């Protein structure tokens, strides 16, 4: 190995048979996918639908990334960052698709950084503080991840058949990721529920924290209903998701909480742009730099 050129030295000696395969081989999930708008699909609704699914992923990714350097153990820091990165990847594909379908020249960053709270279409479940902030802890993070990934995996499993080839391709990539997220959350649910008395209390409290926002996941929105064959009607998913959750709860000795759903605001919820107070703070932090230097390139 040569010391004279630090950069060459990095590449020799180690050989290219890097069998640990760390950080290699990320394919473009949309390679070869037809990006043209499928005939007969309403533009405004498809744009909104891509924003809904994209905002869910973006906001939860932002929340999960808060754990970075704060996780209960270093191995878990790596795992949570992986999940956050998967969701961020999904968000970027979906927001880009939203901008492309809309045709008004907005790209993923314009949509992520220059929309205000009421323009965000994510479900409220993903935006609340479930730790490491004071609003939650590792157990409520896991409870939310279990519910969200079980639900989103059910959505994406059907979305693979979408008439929009881009949504279908995003879903095909996403199902593998979400299956992993769900598994990770389920494993931790078992361990926290079956660990110590204290961890069990935390797990029960974590489920109670997120449960009021679960019902909203299954409320069909007019946008979804206006896109037959393209979007997934979430009201059809409840039995499947309940069965998954009941399996995990059964193994963990937990019960589905009996807690009333969080009220809509003037009849509207996250999908309509009516959020909890938490989203404003989340966006203020996420967007401030991008907004403070207009015309900057990053």
């Amino acid at each position, binding site marked *: 190995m040569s010391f004279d050129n630090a950069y060459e030295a990095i590449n020799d000696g180690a050989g290219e048979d890097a069998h640990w395969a760390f950080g290699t081989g990320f394919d473009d999930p949309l390679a070869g996918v037809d990006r043209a708008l499928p005939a007969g699909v309403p533009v405004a609704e498809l744009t909104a639908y891509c924003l809904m699914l994209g905002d869910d992923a973006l906001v939860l990714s932002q929340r999960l990334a808060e754990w970075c350097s704060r996780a209960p153990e*270093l191995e878990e820091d790596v795992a949570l960052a992986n999940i956050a990165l998967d969701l961020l990847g999904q*968000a970027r594909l979906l927001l880009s698709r939203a901008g492309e379908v809309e045709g008004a020249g907005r790209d993923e960053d314009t949509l992520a950084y220059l929309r205000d709270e009421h323009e965000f279409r994510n479900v409220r479940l993903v935006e609340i503080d479930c730790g490491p902030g004071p609003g939650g802890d590792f157990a409520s993070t896991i409870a939310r991840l279990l519910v969200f990934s079980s639900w989103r995996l059910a959505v994406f499993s059907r979305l693979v058949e979408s008439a929009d080839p881009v949504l279908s391709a995003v879903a095909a990539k996403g199902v593998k990721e979400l299956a992993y997220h769900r598994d990770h959350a389920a494993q931790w649910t078992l361990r926290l529920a*079956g660990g110590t008395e204290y961890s069990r209390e935390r797990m029960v409290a974590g489920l109670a924290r997120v449960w009021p926002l679960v019902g909203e996941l299954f409320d069909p929105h007019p946008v979804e209903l206006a896109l037959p064959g393209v979007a997934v009607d979430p009201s059809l998913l409840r039995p499947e998701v309940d069965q998954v959750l009941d399996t995990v709860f059964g193994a963990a000795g937990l019960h589905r909480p009996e807690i009333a759903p969080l009220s809509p605001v003037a009849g509207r919820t996250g999908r309509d742009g009516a959020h909890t107070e938490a989203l404003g703070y989340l966006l203020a932090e996420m967007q401030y730099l*991008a907004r403070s230097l207009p*015309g*900057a*390139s990053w």
Partner: protein
Amino acid sequence: MDAEREREFDRVVAAEQRVEPRDWMPDGYRKTLIRQIAQHAHSEIIGMQPEANWISRAPSLRRKAILLAKVQDEAGHGLYLYAATETLGADREDLTTRLVQGRQKYSSIFNYPTLTFADVGVIGWLVDGAAICNQVPLCRTSYGPYARAMIRVCKEESFHQRQGYELLMTMMRGTEAQRRMVQDAVDRWWWPSLMMFGPPDDASSNTERSMAWRIKRHTNDELRQKFVDMTVPQAEALGVTLPDPELRWNPERGHHDFGQIDWDEFWRVVGGDGPCNRQRVDHRRAAHENGAWVREAAAAYAAKQARQEGAA
């Protein structure tokens, strides 16, 4: 008998062969390695914080993804290195305790704050660049597990350095405000980056023995010079000024001359009085303590499962 073992050990090291975990090794070698690798591992883990500081505010989704992946890599590097200490009989929990109690050190560079997003780029360019200069020779260090961990770490660091430089180039092509931001970050990070190579050779107590053991392969001053020579043309290409009026090419030496490093500042920060020392250690301690109930829960669950399997 020890003398004979020691001769064999010296022969292996002198022949550029690798010492492996179960080989006999002098106590001093083992202690020095544990200390050095642990400090290195701690540096990776503490080093997550200044950059993680900008993940939530990264100004584009691409930059957010790059930064999150990078900080995650640092966690990975810390894990590889802690694993190397464990082949020497150290215990990660114990090393972590020493870190959060302030009894073991990490690289002082991470005791400086990241004040703007340009700092993320400058850390990639200068701090990771300096780390590469320090670490590439360690890929040939005499202790096998350390050398193997370093090969993996160096590959990723070089990628990080290119990412950092690319961010700075993009910002320099942006607005005037962005260019000022980059220059300000360079002004703040340049001297601390030079300090990353440690005290000058005449004040470095461990260098000679570590070099004989092939734990260390170049002196602090050699590596520092290498870094300066590598970085000057990169700064020119970028269009930033390195904040040192004495920095100039010396054709006789074939190297750049540079100004006097403020060693008082260096020793102050090493001694615990840098801008962020307490903050960094407190952050790590809080994460470790707040996570204790989770680690205990998983251990308790595993013990219950093992008991059930044993009973079945």
